[in-house]
């Protein structure tokens, strides 16, 4: 028999891990001489108590859904894609290119084409590492790390030497044409003259992210490709026996992963900045790791974890604004979440399993 019930594995273990991470974060805040309760209240106020706070929270959430799903799909195939950051950068390049060079009649068409372009560019950036993993056994973790740096160099070169408008100083493209600007939550939901969502960057891409979550669930648990990806992730030798090609699954799942990372650019580049800047990703690719771990690679989990990190990001910005706590606090929390839900999983799991076993023995 399994050592503990499925619900404990899916909910209890991550919950305890999060609580541990939260407790340690509180200690860190105490250690730098601030009040964790006040800090938390400030974060809630800034991120959740105002519609513009929600606008930011959901904007960040959108990013993290994409990168979280990116890491999660690779996890299902038993691969660790640390390259979400680089794939998102190159995805941004794809989005920027279509926005700059195709004269779109309407934002909806632009969004559709940019979606394809972002996904395609992100997928291409994942293609080489996945091909090398599948065909030559080069460890995907190392190659994707390397490709993050190479992506940064490529983007740097393209922005500085090719796409920078003449005369401009900062390495960024020109502002995209008006027709490609995506409707924000303010455009969509605020009644005439209301201040709802005012100035906040959340935009229509959020709904694409939600669609991605739903699509992800169907893909992984309801299609034969998902069946094969999971089978391969659990046991490569069994997959081979079943006639599932490891090369195909490795490459296809990484293409999907890279594509999802690339989609993040819709939100940051097309939705918010409306031009491509050098550091558009701002580490969201790495936050995807924490989100996927915390969300147990399940779209519902990923959505909730992305929401939590969206809240942390917006709340963290508020903290930096009003207190002496720098934004890096969020990086620490992110590290603790990765540590407890990922690397120290067994520290929580092993005592729990013992507890459940003891309980079962008492029952029988």
């Amino acid at each position: 028999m399994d050592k503990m019930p499925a619900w404990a594995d899916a909910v209890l273990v991550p919950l305890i891990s999060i609580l541990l991470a939260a407790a340690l974060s509180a200690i860190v805040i105490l250690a730098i001489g601030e009040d964790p309760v006040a800090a938390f209240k400030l974060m809630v106020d800034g991120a959740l108590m105002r519609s513009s706070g929600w606008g930011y929270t959901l904007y960040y959430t959108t990013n993290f859904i994409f990168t979280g799903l990116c890491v999660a799909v690779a996890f299902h195939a038993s691969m660790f894609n640390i390259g979400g950051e680089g794939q998102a950068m190159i995805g941004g390049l794809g989005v920027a290119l279509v926005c700059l060079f195709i004269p779109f009649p309407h934002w909806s068409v632009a969004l559709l084409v940019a979606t394809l372009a972002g996904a395609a560019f992100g997928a291409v950036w994942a293609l080489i590492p996945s091909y090398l993993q599948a065909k030559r056994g080069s460890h995907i973790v190392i190659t994707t790390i390397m490709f993050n740096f190479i992506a940064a160099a490529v983007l740097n070169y393209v922005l500085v030497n090719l796409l920078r408008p003449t005369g401009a100083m900062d390495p960024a493209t020109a502002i995209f044409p008006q027709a490609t600007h995506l409707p924000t939550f303010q455009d969509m939901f605020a009644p005439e003259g209301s201040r709802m969502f005012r100035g906040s960057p959340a935009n229509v891409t959020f709904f694409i992210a939600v669609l991605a979550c739903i699509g992800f669930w169907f893909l992984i648990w309801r299609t034969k490709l998902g069946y094969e990806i999971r089978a391969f992730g659990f046991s490569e030798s069994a997959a081979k026996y079943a006639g599932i090609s490891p090369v195909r699954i490795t490459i296809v799942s990484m293409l999907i992963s890279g594509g999802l990372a690339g989609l993040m650019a819709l939100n940051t580049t097309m939705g918010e900045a409306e031009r491509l800047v050098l550091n558009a990703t701002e580490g969201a690719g790495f936050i995807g790791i924490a989100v996927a771990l915390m969300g147990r690679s399940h779209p519902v989990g990923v959505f909730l974890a992305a929401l939590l990190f969206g809240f942390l990001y917006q709340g963290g910005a508020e903290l930096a604004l009003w207190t002496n706590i720098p934004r890096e606090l969020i990086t620490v929390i992110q590290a603790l979440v990765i540590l407890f839900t990922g690397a120290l999983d067994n520290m929580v799991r092993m005592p729990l399993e013992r507890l459940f076993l003891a309980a079962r023995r008492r029952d029988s």
Partner: protein
Amino acid sequence: MTDTAAPAIELKGISKAFGPVQANKDISIRVMPGTIHGIIGENGAGKSTLMSILYGFYKADAGEVWIHGKKTEIPDSQAAIAAGIGMVFQHFKLVQNFTVLENVILGAEDGPMLRPSLARARGVLKRLSEEYELSVDPDQLIENLSVGHQQRVEILKALYRQADILILDEPTGVLTPAEADHLFRILDNLRAEGKTIILITHKLREIMEITDTVSVMRRGEMTATVKTAETSPEQLAELMVGRKVLLRVDKAPAQPGASVLEIENLRHVDHHGVERLKGISLEVKAGEIVGIAGVAGNGQSELLEVLGGYADGTGTIRVNGAEIDLTGKHSDGQSRRARGIAHVPEDRQTEGLIMAYAAWENTVFGYHRDPHYQSGPLMNNALIKAEAQDKMTRYDVRPPNPNLAARNFSGGNQQKIVLAREIERDPDILLIGQPTRGVDIGAIEFIHQEIVRLRDKGKAILLVSVELDEILSLSDRIAVMFDGQIMGERLPAETDQTELGLLMAGVTERPDKPLIEAVDAQLDAKEAREAEQHG
């Protein structure tokens, strides 16, 4: 040696549970110095657990260990070594890219610098080799040695640590009969020198051949300890399984029909560049079971892999007269299944099943692309589940719960899930490897009956097993593999264990030379060829 001397090892009331499973229940044994004591039992009877406790790998829940009349605590391997216990595990514990010498001194070095340790070990090894017929090149890398020689390194490791109690866990599983004979001569020498040996095995023949006393284990309990001279294989077998064993499978004579599977000159080179199949030619007709006998590692697994479509090969394979693609686009497992080849793989845990998948998901594993299981772009999980429930009931899978993950079933029930999946596809050809490995007696009978039933429906069956008894009782025709080749085919009625054993060691004719020399010559030649291919 008298019964009044203190036993070399005495276990008193050892118990050990893993979660809800009681692996050892109140076990007591006495082993006198200078004897070979056999422990026999089915897979999963708790033999290895008991020995792991003795070697400090597990901590017993209850019970005491006495060594040479002294109560001894063995919390770890270090303590076991200090108590003079050496262990040769079923899966060798060697560092593949270290030399023999480095492996021998590892953990038993003389000081912080390596050089003096290596020099002394070289001398000791030379002496031990001569004393016990344990010759092996001290400077060779382990990865270049045959399994027989690797096992010698394991024994040398124990002797170098001055073990006077040696435990061997299923030592002959990977050896040819001749290599096994050589091992037994070594054990004989060790006994003559006063060493105490515990031999764990599930093979009755070995117990009868070499041991002085034998203990029988069944489901975690010690059912009897007897003097070998005063018992018989039949009695031991009965003690092992708890009732009379049906040694022969009830089956009518085969009615072979047309040739269904024809293999001609099949070759396979593994990823190290070693040729594992060296021109196999074989034919299986409708309504017959062809058994492949051989020591593990002589190409049987590769043969199944090439036939099953997950390893490349060259040569010709015809199914019902039509040639199949061996290396191209249609050489994968999916294409093989489409051609009516079903495959029960040798290892159900790493190949046949996804242990984390529910039983129902596993019942379509490999056939999941079948349009029957799809509805639109999605898989028809409701249908798959319903069919799974039906299959599980008919194949007596216990518990018949399709939502349970595969890892939660016993070995026998896991095998039934695989069998149900493959047989229910109504294939023309069934490839089946080690059908009853790690399966309890009750399930063995069921599985054997299913195989025969399929044969009687006119299917072609290729059976691979390292258990000679199983080959002899199931097969209508037997082919023996050695070193990637088929050494000969025999009819079960016209052959015996001895003849098959010789073929398994590559000896095709009854030799004029003494048997052992002939076998050794064959094995040396095989090793030399492998070393050459390793480059």
